[in-house]
């Protein structure tokens, strides 16, 4: 646990990377990059925070700490003020239009 900020351990979300040979830090940054492709549609941005949490930032500069990816979408919906739905055709079109 970090003595200054009180964060406990590492995230235990089910979707944490499994079976990858990449270093944990690199996996983490890759997940953040992928999540940002989706979050860009809602003008949100996710950043790493000390390797144990994440910070989600809204276009107006509002920020929320996210402890793991299990919480990400709920917090993102609060910041975006709208549902974040992977079945939304507009979101799928947006994803299709991003250069790989």
């Amino acid at each position, binding site marked *: 646990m970090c003595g200054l900020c009180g964060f406990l351990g590492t995230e235990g979300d089910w979707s944490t990377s499994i079976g990858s040979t990449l270093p944990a830090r690199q996996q983490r940054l890759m997940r953040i990059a992928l999540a940002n492709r989706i979050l860009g549609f809602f003008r949100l941005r996710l950043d790493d925070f000390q390797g144990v949490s994440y910070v989600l930032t809204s276009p107006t500069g509002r920020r929320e700490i996210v402890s793991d990816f299990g919480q990400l979408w709920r917090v993102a919906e609060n910041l975006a003020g709208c549902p974040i739905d992977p079945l939304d055709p507009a979101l799928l079109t947006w*994803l299709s239009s991003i250069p790989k």
Partner: protein
Amino acid sequence: MTTVSFDLIALNVITGFLGSGKTTLLRNLLASDLGHETAVLINEFGEVGIDHLLVGEVAPDTVLLKSGCVCCSIRGELKDALVQLFSRRQKGEVPKFRRVILETTGLADPAPIFATILADPMLQHHFRLGVIVTVVDCFNAALHEQLHPEWTAQVTAADRLILTKRDLVAEQSFEALQKKLQAINPAAVILTGEDVKPQDPLLLTAGLHDAGPEREAERWIQNSRSRPWSKTNDVGVASEHEHSTHARIHSFCLVFDYQINWPAFGLWLSMLLNRHGRNILRVKGILNLSGAEYPVAIHGVQHLVHPPVHLREWPDHDRRSRIVFIVDGLEPETIEQSFKTFCEYLK
């Protein structure tokens, strides 16, 4: 010197409606060879715990949860009971049981039980989910389905479905019920009450998180094989269920012949469950992941997903990823299209 065991203790769940035969099954299980390694939690609705007294004869360490239905409101009590049992086990006050059976009240939705284990920082290190057995009363199944949404929750959450009171219904009705249950939960093993042997490992010790998860994944695949891949199995179209309140429930299986990127899959499924978890009653599957020789099994109930399990071999010769969904009102084509887009563009 005190030794501390870090084995995860299986929490098996027996659920089903009032009078369906849960307690009879439990008594038979406890009387079998597996009984001496088993602790029991009984959750009853009402002031007098009848089931508690019945089972107490064969399992003196039975703990009664007094708050009635297992739901979000009593997660704390379930946690306390598990912690208490574990503490007594570690102190040697009760035998070193290897599993706990929780018999739920008839009106329980099993999903919050999983949440209790998965979300609690202490329990998740000492307990794991075992096998979920749902007892279905053949005689009253149609009535239970019509009147209680919990019936569907119990059926969809089941790893094993045990059909009781078969002798009280006509053969035709029994077969129709079997078909219906297969359509609702294609990955579950269906057993009839008279065929159940209390020592059958299928009932308590053959879940995905037990030794040999490959066999459980194989059962998913075999049981689901009768269902058309990538097509909806409408549950409510049979004439006797046309007016069912659960007619929107479908099961379907998505099949993908390319390797799946795990981070993209994780983002997609966590998004889907966050927004539609209430309507995704069950998801189960094996995934062929990029860079992995063997598959990973996933399973979840509503908003909850259990830790993925690495399999040490493929269940069959088929190397495609297969994901079974049981959904309420969602269209399989929409989910499939979304999944494909995420896999293709999030690499």
